């Protein structure tokens, strides 16, 4: 049962082949038995899950079941969950129980979902390997010596290990797409503003976006139908109407114009990855798409721009963790300054501190124009590159990552090399565009992801193309050995 997709499980629940309680218990048992290998959950919530499953079964019996009723979900541990620890992968919030639900969590609750627990992540979503988690790195189910990617690494590992059929993630510079690629699952980062950020602990507010992670595009559509929509609690959420993201999955993609940026398929790219992506492109051509080369000349500038803007916002967003109202507080502070410095020194890990310092520096009087303003200018240029490209093509396609999953510890002493992992994903966040990662092969037994980039609010088209691809390929159905 655990290898079934979310969509298949929904059908089983609807037909009565299985109850939500049985399904939930099966996943809880798997997590209890296997997660010591993957460390993909920070917190499991079996009592809540079983209570929600019971309620879902009752709702179904009463004829009140919706599309998501009784289906399991795991939430990345930066979505606030009422009465359940929301740690953000940090010692700072190890003792923090949110008094309220994030909008995304509330929407899943209202849809009748069953919450299995909270998934591991890089501390405050800062990282590409999950290694900055206070709870230890989550491990890649395809090779537990390797990273699952990050920052939504716990969500990706849990879905890949079939410990949950679906998990929420968040993506600030690639944090849904990169771990999805490295773990062989499907994930979509919606357009900025499509999914409410309320209750999602902020890393970089102008870049953060929550989204679905699951086995397939079809499953992601099912999730996005729950997650998306305007939220009056988030001023940056879009008031644009949402679509039924499942409705267009089966449309033909014949005539679709796909652009492949030459900067993404350069000689620097691992040739084996290039080959898998090319194979994917061939499949789409067979389905009637036309493919041409395009240029996104400012791609390389996205890394320095991102690593100014994101840390700058983070340095401000993380100021609230001061030991005064909640979260970690140092023992016996001597005075106010001691309270601040020791609380933050003890509560934050090295990568978080690094980004707070970089961001603080970039915003300082005298440096602001040289760094923050310049980065914002680059951001607009990157957006213009994309908009120009979308005048010619309907969709942009390339690799999600430059490499398959690397070994745990391999990049620990080289943060810049770690930052380069996000070369293909960052620019979408800077532009606010939607993107998704779809499994398109393996390299030496490790999954490889193909990235689809859409125009603003073109999630339905992305999901349609990915779904059509997944009708003629089975990469998304492959599982790590022993699953």
């Amino acid at each position, binding site marked *: 049962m655990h290898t079934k997709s979310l969509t298949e499980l929904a059908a089983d629940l609807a037909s009565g082949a299985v109850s939500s309680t049985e399904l939930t218990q099966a996943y809880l048992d798997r997590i209890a038995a296997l997660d010591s290998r993957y460390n993909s959950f920070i917190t499991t919530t079996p009592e809540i899950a079983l209570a929600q499953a019971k309620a879902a079964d009752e709702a179904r019996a009463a004829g009140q079941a919706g599309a998501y009723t009784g289906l399991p979900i795991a939430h990345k541990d930066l979505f606030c969950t009422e009465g359940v620890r929301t740690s953000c992968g940090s010692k700072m919030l190890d003792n923090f129980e949110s008094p309220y639900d994030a909008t995304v969590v509330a929407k899943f609750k209202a849809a009748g979902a069953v919450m299995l627990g909270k998934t591991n992540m890089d501390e405050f979503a800062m990282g590409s390997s999950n290694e900055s988690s206070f709870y230890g790195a989550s491990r890649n189910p395809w090779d537990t010596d390797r990273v699952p990617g990050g920052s939504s690494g716990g969500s990706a590992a849990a879905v890949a290990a079939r410990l949950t059929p679906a998990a929420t993630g968040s993506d600030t510079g690639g944090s849904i797409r990169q771990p999805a690629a490295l773990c062989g699952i499907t994930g979509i980062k919606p357009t900025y503003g499509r999914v409410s950020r309320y209750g999602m602990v902020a890393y970089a507010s102008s870049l953060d976006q929550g989204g679905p992670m699951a086995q397939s595009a079809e499953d992601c559509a099912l999730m996005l139908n729950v997650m998306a929509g305007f939220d009056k609690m988030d*001023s940056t959420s879009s008031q644009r109407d949402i679509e039924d993201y499942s409705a267009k999955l089966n449309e033909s993609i014949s005539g679709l114009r796909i652009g492949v940026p030459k900067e993404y398929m350069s000689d620097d790219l691992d040739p084996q990855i290039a080959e898998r992506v090319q194979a994917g492109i061939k499949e789409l051509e067979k389905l009637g798409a036309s493919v041409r080369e395009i240029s996104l000349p400012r791609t390389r500038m996205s890394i320095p721009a991102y690593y100014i803007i994101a840390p700058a916002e983070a340095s401000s967003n993380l100021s609230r963790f001061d030991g005064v109202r909640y979260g970690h507080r140092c023992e016996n502070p001597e005075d106010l300054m001691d309270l601040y410095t020791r609380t933050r020194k003890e509560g934050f890990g090295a990568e978080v501190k690094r980004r707070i310092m970089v961001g603080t520096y970039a915003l300082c*009087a005298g440096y602001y124009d040289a760094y923050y303003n310049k980065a914002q200018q680059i951001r607009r240029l990157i957006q213009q590159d994309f908009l120009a490209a979308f005048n010619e093509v309907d969709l942009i396609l390339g690799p999600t990552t430059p490499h398959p999953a690397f070994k745990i510890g391999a990049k620990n002493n080289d943060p810049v090399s770690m930052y380069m992992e996000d070369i293909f994903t960052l620019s979408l966040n800077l532009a606010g565009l939607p993107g998704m990662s779809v499994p398109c092969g393996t390299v030496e037994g490790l999954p490889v992801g193909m990235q689809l980039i859409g125009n603003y609010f073109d999630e339905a088209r992305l999901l349609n193309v990915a779904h059509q691809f997944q009708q003629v390929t089975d990469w998304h159905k492959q599982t790590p050995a022993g699953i």
Partner: protein
Amino acid sequence: MEWETVIGLEIHVQLSTQTKIFSGASTAFGAEPNTQACAVDLALPGTLPVFNENAQRMAIMFGLAINAEIGKRAVFERKNYFYPDLPKGYQTTQLEKPVVGEGYVDITTDEGSRRVRIHHAHLEEDAGKSLHEDFHGMSGIDLNRAGTPLIEIVSEPDMRTSKEAAEYARKIHAIVTTLGICDGNMAEGSMRCDCNVSIRPKGQEEYGTRTELKNINSFRFIERAIDTEVARQIDLIEDGGKVVQETRLYDPDRNETRSMRSKEDANDYRYFPCPDLLPVVVDDDYVEAIRATLPELPDARRERFISEYNLSDYDAGVLSAYRPQADYYEAVVAASKDAKLAANWVMGELAKNLNANDTDIKQSPVSAEQLGGLLKRIKDNTISGNIAKKVFEHMWSDGGTADEIIEAKGLKQVTDTGAIEKVIDEVIANSTPQVEQYKAAEPDKRGKMIGFFMGQVMKATGGKANPGAVTGLLKKKLDALCD
């Protein structure tokens, strides 16, 4: 050497919105600590601000009242600094693009008239309060005030005397209370002033080094604090010292200013546009719709009081400065049909009693209709001015209309000439020495001597005799004795 004082004011005005500027929590004053602070005000992880449009409307009202440019696109920025009563670790404010641009107000003191230019006014959130008493060596934090909307009104350094500074502050107070955008309660901190003060040799163009006097909450203290600080600066310079740019605190108990922090300790606030809030865009229609709702402003009302009611500049200025008082005054005029008498009573007996009881005119136990009714009885000679004061005292303490009180207490004026003549005859008969003095006096000195007889008659009639009638009869009878 002759010195000139240069003063600029930064006035913080709390807007009287029902809810906070970025959350739905109540702004009511005086609740138990931390009972009016919601998740957003506490800066819980994941929370986001939602701008209260009412604050925008009120800020624009102020802008229109000071003839200012209205910012078509106002941008909120984050001002980053750590303080325990600043929950997010930054204050959301406006810097580069404030809601209200350049404007001005005109003020008049006995030193003459002056136009004070206003550099800009911006919207921002108030901080909470740190409480340093009764916590056994620790500090308490009350976040009820956190997030209360403020406009900060920044003047140019256009004032030259402490009187002008206080008058400018009174003018701002009059404007914001007339607009109904602030309750004007300075004791509760609804309006707080920072005064920038410097001195320079008379005739010199260049400004001297300024100090900033923080958080002064009464007009009287503005004058005293500036006078004290100017004296300090003059002494300092004349003793060969230098003024240091710093923030100083005025201590009204000791009537001295003392250093809080110097410029060297100043924070680098690392301002940057708040990514959680969209720019606030307003169009001309929106602004014009607000302009149409503006009440009559203090300057216009003052002019009308002069032309319509024949009041002196001074009376018109006092009565128009505070809208509830101006409204009250006009209601008294309507009820009494005597603008001058109404002015005297509102500024005299009523103001005296309100001050003595520390009561706002809005809570006056004597209504405008009651007072108007009383004045009518003075006008029609039912009672004298002195008796009216007694009636007013009864009204103040026990309520009732003038007619009811006059009737119940038997205070109606005696105008019956026969009755008055009888009393006069008795008084003359019992005052032989005074009558002899009167007769012995030069005729032109006799007028002053009537006062004694007048007093005796009033005493004998319990003040109810008509003073005009008494004077006439007394003079006639005494002069008859002299022949």
